[in-house]
């Protein structure tokens, strides 16, 4: 039945699209914009307009019908308002840095798309939270406070408490403080792990590309073998073993985890840096350096590495997201960052039962979404910045 409705709507929209184009042609005296518009594009315009109208209608639906809260409308409003606030903040952020800073940074911000400005802003905010977590967070991450299960929002009528603006978890720890400390733990550990993965994968990849021969074969086949094993399951297996070795020391488990994820992810970095390196190593300037009698270190670090910055930096951004999500997933599965350290993955897992209350208590159901949202926001931000850097570096090659 639903399929039938969708089909009817689609056919209706195609009709409207044709009408839209012919009206446009007639109204503008056959302007090239309407004249050369393919049917697909006309359909796209009509579909987009329809979706915008539907969204506006949904946005202004009442929050409460006969005492039953409309959770969907509430969440939709939060999403739209959040989007608007972030977009405005990014715009202001970009505007400020177009007029403040060095000549170079001003020029950079002038040609920057809004998405990249948003990404940089979020990364800076996260970095500040991560570095100064101890000063910013109102409570400690392990501090068990009086009231458990305080609903976020700080409105006593709905079960909130202004002292804990984002509420507390099942054993009464402040969620806002734990989110801020989570930035330190999750993001900090992900950053260290990614750096390590790049150090291992990058140096071996360039070595394989430059020297070739049996070393390249050995390294590449080892990497192939490692990549054949599903990453998350492999990490799970290794961490289980490492936990047995580490005994009761929780920080030792964390260090083992950093090394395990770094090695698994370094296989991906190896593949990329070897491919990039192979493209660079055939260049005439490398041949000129070889014929000059330069050593391996000079070739790799002075001649090759500067030309590989753009793809490696872009990969760093993506890899950081993957590592970060792997750690969050491992924490969610209970083997990652160990309690009582605050970690976003663990927080999502611990608070996940609340999602069942979404129908009748949307504020309570928002608790697990806060940590998940923190993860999503950083991932999106990093990807925006990476996209922008890739675009910039490909533009430079022209």
């Amino acid at each position: 039945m639903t399929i039938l409705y969708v089909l009817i709507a689609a056919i209706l929209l195609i009709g409207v699209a044709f009408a839209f184009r012919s009206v446009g042609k007639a109204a503008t005296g056959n302007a090239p914009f309407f004249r050369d518009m393919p049917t697909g594009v006309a359909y796209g315009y009509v579909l987009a307009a329809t979706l915008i109208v539907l969204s506006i209608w949904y946005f202004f639906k009442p929050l409460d019908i006969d005492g039953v809260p409309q959770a969907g409308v509430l969440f939709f409003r939060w999403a739209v308002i959040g989007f608007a606030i972030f977009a405005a903040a990014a715009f202001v952020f970009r505007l400020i840095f177009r007029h403040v800073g060095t000549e170079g940074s001003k020029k950079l911000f002038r040609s920057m798309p809004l998405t990249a400005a948003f990404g940089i802003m979020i990364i800076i905010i996260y970095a500040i939270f991560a570095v100064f977590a101890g000063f910013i967070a109102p409570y400690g991450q392990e501090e068990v406070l009086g009231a458990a299960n305080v609903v976020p929002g700080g409105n006593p009528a709905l079960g909130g408490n202004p002292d804990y603006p984002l509420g507390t978890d099942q054993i009464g720890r402040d969620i806002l403080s734990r989110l801020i400390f989570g930035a330190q733990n999750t993001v900090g550990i992900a950053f260290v792990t990614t750096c390590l993965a790049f150090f291992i994968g990058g140096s071996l990849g360039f070595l394989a590309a430059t020297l070739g021969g049996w070393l390249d074969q050995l390294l590449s086949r080892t990497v192939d073998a490692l990549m054949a094993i599903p990453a998350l399951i492999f990490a799970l297996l290794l961490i289980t073993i490492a936990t047995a070795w580490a005994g009761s020391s929780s920080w030792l488990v964390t260090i083992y985890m950093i090394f395990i994820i770094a090695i698994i992810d370094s296989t991906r970095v190896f593949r990329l840096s070897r491919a990039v390196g192979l493209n660079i190593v055939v260049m005439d300037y490398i041949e000129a350096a070889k014929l000059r009698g330069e050593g391996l270190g000079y070739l790799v670090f002075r001649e090759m590495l500067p030309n590989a910055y753009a793809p490696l930096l872009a990969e760093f951004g993506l890899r950081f997201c993957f590592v970060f999500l792997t750690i969050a997933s491992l924490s969610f599965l209970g083997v990652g960052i160990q309690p009582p350290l605050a970690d976003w993955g663990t927080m999502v897992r611990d608070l996940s039962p609340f999602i069942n209350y979404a129908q009748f208590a949307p504020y309570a159901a928002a608790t697990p979404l806060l940590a998940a949202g923190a993860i999503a926001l950083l991932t999106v931000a990093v990807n925006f910045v990476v996209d922008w850097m890739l675009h910039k570096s490909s533009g430079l090659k022209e």
Partner: protein
Amino acid sequence: MSDQLLKIRGLKIEGRSDETWNPIINGVDLDLNKGEVIGLIGESGAGKSTIGLASMGFTRDGVRISEGSVVFDGVDLVTASAADKRALLGSRIAYVAQSAAASFNPAHKLIDQHTEGPTQHNVSSRSESQSDGIELYRRLRLPNPEEIGFRYPHQVSGGQLQRAMTAMAMACRPDLIIFDEPTTALDVTTQIEVLASIRDIVEQFDTAAIYITHDLAVVAQMADKIKVLLKGDEVEEADTRTMLSAPTQEYTKSLWAVRSFERPAKPAVISGSTPVVSVKNVTAAYGTVDVLHDVSFDIHEGRTVAVVGESGSGKSTTARCITGLLPPRIGHVEFDGQQLPLDYRKRDKMQLRQAQMIYQMADTALNPRKTIGETIGRPVEFYLGLKGREKRKKVGALLEEIELEPTQYYDRLPSELSGGQKQRIGIARALAAEPKFIICDEVTSALDQLVAEGILKLLAKLQDQLGLSYMFITHDLATVKAISDEVVVMKDGVVVEQGEKADMFQPPHHPYTDLLLSSVPEMDPDWLDNLLEARGVDNIGDAAVDKM
């Protein structure tokens, strides 16, 4: 119906960079009648290709036609609707790109790509256009016309692909074909074949053509009239013979004069003196296949030895043997009478320093992330041990030697230089090692003629000042004539002839040398006709090479 096919009036084209629109073409007019061929000539960046594409009503991404009209047979292509243009392009206007190898889809057979146009435009059925394609292949004198269309692009040689592409452009019997440098990437012997085929077929079907090239001699053979462009402006236009015999503008005259540069001859070598570089009976192989067979020649102090041959003849491989990148299987290389280790990794710093190299593509020869100061400074520091202020002074002196202002260029990146300037930096990097011997691998073939002449003059000047010896690898015989003292002709990894330049350019020649020499286009519009008459239509290009 008038005779006029294409009429371009006040064409202005702009390109977008750094958020603003900058002019590329500043108002060019062009008239073309049915069956007429116009040659567009100019340096790179003159806007030749942009005009070529604009005459199809098309612009590249980030480029727009801001003013003017392009009227093709009564239809203004600038304002025409997408549907109207679709009907014209491919069927009445066709395009032949510079690199056929990059323009064919490697996943489809030639004939399948050939039949696509006629079937799309409902000109003929698939089987009709297929048999027509075979007929066109025959007329373009492709070998095995019945069978060649059923191959994939990678199974066909570059010259043949270029002709297959011309056949494809002909498939709908268009009124206008735009040739964008169709022979620039080909060897001279192959080029003749393609030129002859293109000219024949254009004449047979009375097709009008816009022929874009930077090679004056080529355009002299192909075009009825020539238009000279400079930085988006028209310099002058006249019919071919007038243009060649009596150009009116200074710029055109300077273009015409480029080919006259020739360095005075050097005295002959004193017999018995030790050569700087001596290649002794070198046989070298890639894998198990020998690509060089018993190559021997000497290079004496202060002299230039040009190594000439088609691509694949082993010129660059010989250079790789001398530098030690490819250790020879048999034979060795001597430097000042001393035998060099075969592998460059076994040579010491002094031996590496004595022989330097300048590359064909300055773009890949300079590290794009290093400033000019770093690029030239590295060999200064590495070989001469100079640091800090002394290094900077030495680099400055080198920059002056290659005629670039030191303070202006020291901190620039290669991307901020023109092609000719980049090539000069390559020369400075080689000079920085203070070598006795430099290998120049096709150093001017990627450059415009005026710029190339500047590089040749610079190399000649440096040779006189510093007593350098050059090994000059090239396929361009004009360059050989301009700069060399001795010539080595190579074919299929074998030296077919060698000797003093004066002797080499005088008959009698080895038949292959003769073929090479006579294949170089000359500025005489009758050159191709005379040559075809002398050789016979079936005995040009690859066919002639194969018969040897």
